[in-house]
C-alpha cells in the first residue's frame, strides 16, 4: 500500500499547527490546537485505510476492491470522544473566565515559592523559628 501523500501532508500540517497552539497559555487557543490535532489524526486514519474503494457492504458493489471499514469506525469513535472533551474544556475555559475574567493559565503558587527560594539560594527550613525555640529549651535543660 502506498500512502496518499496529499493526505499525509494535510495531517502533518494540522498536527504541527495543533501542537504549536497547544503550547499557548490561553485555554481557548490551546483548545483550538487540540481540535486541529484531533482532525489531523482523523485524516491520518484515512491514510491508514488505504485507497478509496467500493462501499464495504457485501453484495452492494460490482465486486471491485472494497474500502477498509475499520479505520472509519475508529475515526467515528475518535470524533465522538473529541466532541465530548471539547465540551468539557469549553466549560472549563468559561469557568476560568467567570472567576478571573481571563483564560490565561497561571503558574502554581507553591512551585513559584520554591523556585524563588532556589534562586535566592535559601536553604533554611521554613519552621526555623520552631527549631530555634526547641534548641533554646534544650540549652536551658543542659544548664
Amino acid at each position, binding site marked *: *500500500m502506498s*500512502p496518499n501523500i496529499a493526505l499525509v501532508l494535510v495531517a502533518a500540517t494540522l*498536527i504541527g499547527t495543533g501542537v504549536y497552539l*497547544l503550547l499557548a497559555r490561553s*485555554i481557548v487557543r*490551546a483548545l483550538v490546537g*487540540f481540535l486541529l*490535532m*484531533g482532525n489531523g*489524526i482523523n485524516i*491520518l*486514519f484515512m*491514510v*491508514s*485505510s488505504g485507497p478509496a474503494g467500493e462501499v464495504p457492504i457485501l453484495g452492494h458493489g460490482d465486486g471491485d476492491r472494497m474500502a*477498509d471499514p*475499520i*479505520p472509519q469506525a*475508529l475515526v467515528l*469513535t*475518535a470524533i465522538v*470522544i473529541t466532541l*465530548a*472533551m471539547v465540551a*468539557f*474544556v469549553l466549560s*472549563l475555559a468559561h*469557568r*476560568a473566565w467567570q*472567576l*478571573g475574567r481571563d483564560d490565561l*493559565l*497561571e503558574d*502554581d503558587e*507553591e*512551585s513559584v515559592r*520554591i523556585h524563588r527560594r532556589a534562586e535566592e539560594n535559601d536553604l533554611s*527550613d*521554613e*519552621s526555623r*523559628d*520552631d527549631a530555634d525555640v*526547641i534548641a533554646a529549651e534544650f540549652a536551658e535543660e543542659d544548664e
Partner: protein
Amino acid sequence: MNDFSWMVPLPVVLPLVGAGINLAAVGRTRVQRLVSMSILTAVLAISVALLFAADQLGPQVVQVGGWAPAEGVVLIVDRLSALMVIVSTVVTMGVLRYSIGQGRSSFDNESDGHAPLPVFHPTMLVLSAGVSTTFISGDLFHMYVGFEMLLAASFVLLTLGGTEARVRAGVTYVFVSLLSSMMFLIAIAMIYAATGTVNLAILATRLDMIPDDTSVVLHVLLILGFCVKAAVFPMSGWLPDSYPTAPAPVTAVFAGLLTKVGVYALIRTQTLLFPDGTLNAVLMWAALLTMIVGILGAVTQDDIKRMLSFTLVSHIGYLLFGIALGSAAGVSAAIFYVLHHITIQTTLFLVTGLVERVGGTTASSHLGGLAKVSPLLGILFFVPAMNLAGIPPFSGFLGKVGLLQAGVEDGTWLALVLVIGSVVTSLLTLYAVARVWGRAFWGSAPQAEDGMTYTPARTGNGRAMGAGVVLPTVSLVAFGLGLTLVAGPLFDITDRAALDLLLREPYLLAVLGEGPR
C-alpha cells in the same frame, strides 16, 4: 477452559449501570451510597473469581458481539489483568467509604460545603469502569477508549467545585492528558497503517513481519503516550502540579490508579508486542532519572500532599525498572510493586486528608505535635510511610528486594547502576517522610501567640477523627499490611503471570486459538 468468560465484561458493565442508576438518583444520597458500595463489592467478588479462573484455567476471553478478533473487540482477563482489577476495586471502595464517612456537608471545604456532591458517586463509578476497561481490553483502540473514559471522569473529579485553584490545576492536567491521548491515537493510526490491525494478539504476530526501523518508530510512539500517563521523567511535571489541589479522596484515588493504568499499558505492550527489548536501555535511563529527580523534588516540599505527589512520580521509576529489565523476575517484581504502590499511595493520601481534618492544613511548616494531638493519626501515617520507604518487614521492602534481585541477576552495568539508584531513592524516600514526620507529628503544636493555631476542618459527622473516615483508612492500612502477610502466595502468582507474559503463547492461544496464524 473458558467457563468463567461470562464474568469478563462485568467489571466494566456493572459500574456503568451503577453510574446510570446513581445519576437518576441524584439528591438521594442514601440510594447512591448503597448502589455504589454494592456494585463495587460485586465487582470485587467477580474479579477474585476471575483471578482464580485465570490462574487455574488460563486466560478468560470474550469476543464482544461474536465478532472474530480481526474485526471486533476482544476482552481478555489473565492473571495480570485480574490482579490489577482486584487492587483497583479495593482502593476505590476504600476511598468511597472514606468520602461517605466525610458526610455530605463536609465533603469540600473549599466551596463552603456546597460542592456538587451528587455527581461524585456516578463519576467515581465511571472512573472505575474506565480503569477496568483498560485492564481487560485485548485491543489497542479499545484501550484508548478506556483511557478516555477514565480521563473524562478524572477531569470532573479534579475540578469538583470549580474553584480558582482547581480550575488552574485542572487546565494543566486536562491538556497534558489530552496530548498523551493524541499521541496514543497517532500511534494507533500508524500501527494500523503498518499492520492492518489493532488487536493485541494479532499485532503480536504481525509486528515480527514488518521492518525493524518501522517497528521502532511505532514502539517509540506508543511508549511516549504511555509514559506521559505514567508520569515518567521528563514527562512527569504535570503530576505534582495538578494532584494536590483536589479534595483528599479524589487525590487518593488518582494517585492510586491513574498513573498505574499507564504502567499497566507499558507492561502489556512491552511484553506482548515488543518482546525483543530494543528500547530497554532507554527505559532504564528513564527509570533512573524518574526515581532520582522525583525524590529530590519530594525532599524540598513543605506541603505533605505535594511531597507525596513527588514520591509517587519517583516510585514509578521502580516499576519502569522492573519492566525494562525484561526478565521474568523483573516483570514479576514490577507487578508486585504496582499492587503495593497502588495501595500505599492511596492510603497515604487518605491519611493526609485526616491530617487536614485535624490540623486544618497540609503545610508541614504550619503543623506540629500531631502525634500528641492524635496518636492514632500518628500510627496511621507512620505505618504506610515506612511501607513506602521500604522498611522491613513491609511489602514495600519485599517489592524492592524483588526488584534489586532481578537487577543483580541481570548483571549488566546499567542494571547495577539502577540497583544503586533504587537504594539511594529508597533512602531519600525515608528522609522525605521522616522530615514530614519530624515537622508535622513531633514537636509542639503551634501556639496562639505564633499566630498559628489549629483550625479543625468543618466536620459533617462530628469529630475530625470520626469513625466514618478513620475506619476506611484503617482498613486500607490493614490491606497494605495484608500484602506483606500474603507476599509469598502473591509473589507465586506474579511469577506465573510474568512467565506467561514473557512466553506470550498462552495469551495468543486464548485469543487466536490453534492453527496457523
